[in-house]
């Protein structure tokens, strides 16, 4: 429509005044209709994403306590929530824990997920059944999985220790969740278990997209096994792996239920991350201002990865 009107102008056909009015009316209508289509999405985004984020940001600059909920009074305190959060003893620990937790989870989930995806690409009996069983961790509510893992990892009567001690793999029971040096590792272990299905399924989908002719051609040139993976599979899977990794990071950064279920951030903050600390500040210490300041730290980190994700998806759609 707009192309047609532009051409009319270019061709130098002089439009009569009535024609101009009609055209204007038509552009106005197009404009309105466009906005009307856009409006529901905009309202939805503003209500459910814009408002909470803006509220969270303003809260982080206020002295926001339980009283605020009733009276509505929340005095502005400038940056003091951020200063208190950053200067607290736990802040360093939470940052380091969040980094180790996220990197550990992602590396484990992605590595094992990719291996499983490659494995299931082979044809063998019961492939479909096993692949659907793999989804199991994804189908369980996280509270259930963490309660079960808490039993498995229990020091005195957990099945894992029974197994390890019974087979003399370890000299005595291991304090999976109760030792400050091991607890984070155990939580990462559970996080990896939870994340494998997501990684395996998406990567499996990506592998299916790679045409088999390429492998045949590569085999003729002598590229099989590892070489085929290195020069055919990996480069062609890149767009998928990028997305899986970035989404994985964003999902893992905000993990809270697994940690709360397994260790409640303990022992002695050994598994405290930015997300759990933000929850603790708000809902057990009732300092909602500091809680949202901590939440915003998480928001900024996630945002960086979200931007990377957008860049990557733009690049892959351009390919």
């Amino acid at each position, binding site marked *: 429509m707009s192309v047609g009107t532009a051409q009319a102008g270019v061709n130098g056909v002089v439009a009569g005044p009535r024609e101009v009015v009609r055209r204007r009316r038509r552009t106005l209508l197009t404009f309105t209709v466009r906005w009307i289509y856009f409006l529901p999405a905009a309202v939805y985004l503003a209500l459910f994403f814009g408002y909470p984020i803006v509220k969270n940001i303003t809260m982080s600059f206020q002295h926001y306590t339980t009283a605020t909920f009733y009276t509505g009074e929340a005095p502005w305190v400038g940056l003091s929530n951020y200063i208190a959060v950053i200067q607290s003893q736990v802040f360093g620990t939470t940052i380091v824990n969040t980094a180790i937790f996220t990197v550990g989870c992602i590396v484990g989930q992605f590595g094992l997920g990719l291996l499983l995806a490659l494995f299931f690409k082979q044809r063998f009996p019961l492939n479909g059944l096993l692949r659907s069983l793999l989804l199991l961790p994804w189908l369980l509510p996280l509270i259930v999985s963490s309660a079960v893992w808490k039993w498995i990892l229990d020091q005195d009567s957990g099945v894992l220790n029974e197994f390890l001690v019974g087979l003399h793999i370890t000299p005595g029971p291991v304090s999976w969740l109760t030792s400050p040096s091991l607890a984070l590792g155990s939580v990462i272990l559970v996080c990896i278990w939870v994340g494998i299905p997501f990684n395996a399924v998406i990567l499996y989908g990506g592998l299916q997209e790679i045409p088999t002719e390429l492998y045949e051609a590569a085999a003729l040139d002598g590229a099989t096994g590892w070489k085929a993976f290195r020069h055919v599979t990996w480069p062609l899977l890149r767009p998928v792996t990028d997305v899986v990794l970035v989404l994985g990071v964003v999902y893992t950064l905000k993990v809270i239920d697994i940690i709360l279920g397994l260790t409640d951030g303990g022992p002695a903050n050994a598994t405290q991350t930015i997300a759990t600390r933000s929850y603790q500040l708000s809902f057990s*210490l009732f300092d909602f201002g500091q809680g949202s300041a901590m939440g915003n730290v998480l928001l900024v980190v996630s945002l960086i990865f979200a931007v990377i994700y957008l860049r990557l998806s733009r690049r892959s759609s351009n390919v």
Partner: protein
Amino acid sequence: MMSRSRKTTRFVVVTAAALMLPSLLTACSSSGGSGGSSGGKVTLTEEDYFTADPDNTAYDDIMKRCGAKAGVTIKRTAVAPTSIIQKVLQQASAKTLPDILMLDNPTLQQVAAAGALQPLTDLGVSTSGYPKGILSTGTYKGKVYGLQPTAASIALFYNKDLFSAAGLQPPTTWDELKADAQKLTNGSTYGVAFSGGTQTEAPWQFLPFMWTNGGSETKIDSPQVVQALQYWTDLVDDGSASKGVVNWSQSDANSQFMAGKAAMQVNGAWNIPVLAKQPDLHYGVVPIPTPRAGQTVQLPLGGVVATAPRTKDTGNQKAVSKVVSCIVGDTTQLSLAKAENSVPAKTALLEKFGNDNPELKSFTEGSSGWRSRTAKLGDAWPKTEAALFQAIQAALSGKSSPSDALSSAAQSIK
């Protein structure tokens, strides 16, 4: 191309939907509202966090009986225990608080500080006959905002069979507890179990040790508190208590005791029905041992407070007053204490209750001396509680010594 009429229809639908969304949302949020009158009879709303039995059924009965007594209908809502505070805050900001609200006693200070509650004395609810601990738990800035129908605390449960097999008597002092625990530790059975694992339960279990030793929540790095934490840490370090205690809730400790994996446990009377499911288990209950012989253990006061939030509708105050008086009335105190294995709140009811319920006698004795956790710190208690929890965890897990753990905890709340 789309015809004009279809375009218009779609325009109308989309606009209508967009306009309706906010009004739908407000409709949802305002439906919670407090009670009103319908068909002549007044309806009051009540909210608590008893989603599990025996309390769930007990509170259903109480609300029915108290509603009938006050001539009103009571609509009861039970919220999940973990989300009651969030729910109350949300209702406070939407001004949709219920007429009657049951809270875990240490959280009353927060809600009263928010200004969301009315003083019970203004409503004309009598506050006489209660021991000091219960009154101070319900008091914020000199006014009583909540009263408890019942009270709970903790004691030492011991396995009679294991004790008689070892030829031991239940301990009364710290030294005896430590020695007995060591002697009873054998194979997969530990001497003693307690809870060091959740933010509210670990400090609650630690308070009797810290208080009886002369420590105070106003100075958590004092030598007395350090000594008490050192005592707990020693129990774990010498193997008399599992290293797992650092991650155990009270119900985890009870499971260990029930399975015969701990010869003693620090826990409360609410476990009695659970323990009864194991008829082979013969256990006794004694007071928590004290640092020196002849001392009286100072126990923390637990329980639920009945409160009356400020609501928009002030026409039903008389009915609210009647219902609250009934919830904390003598009849309710006796029946509820029996149902949930706690003790009645009023001092005058204790003796009779103890005689009628011998299995709870060890709890009724001395229950009028149970101390409020929030008496000294008021709404600042959660911060100290969290700091104590961190120190307990750091010491029990061997991350730092009890004195380092407590001094860094004290530093964090300065």
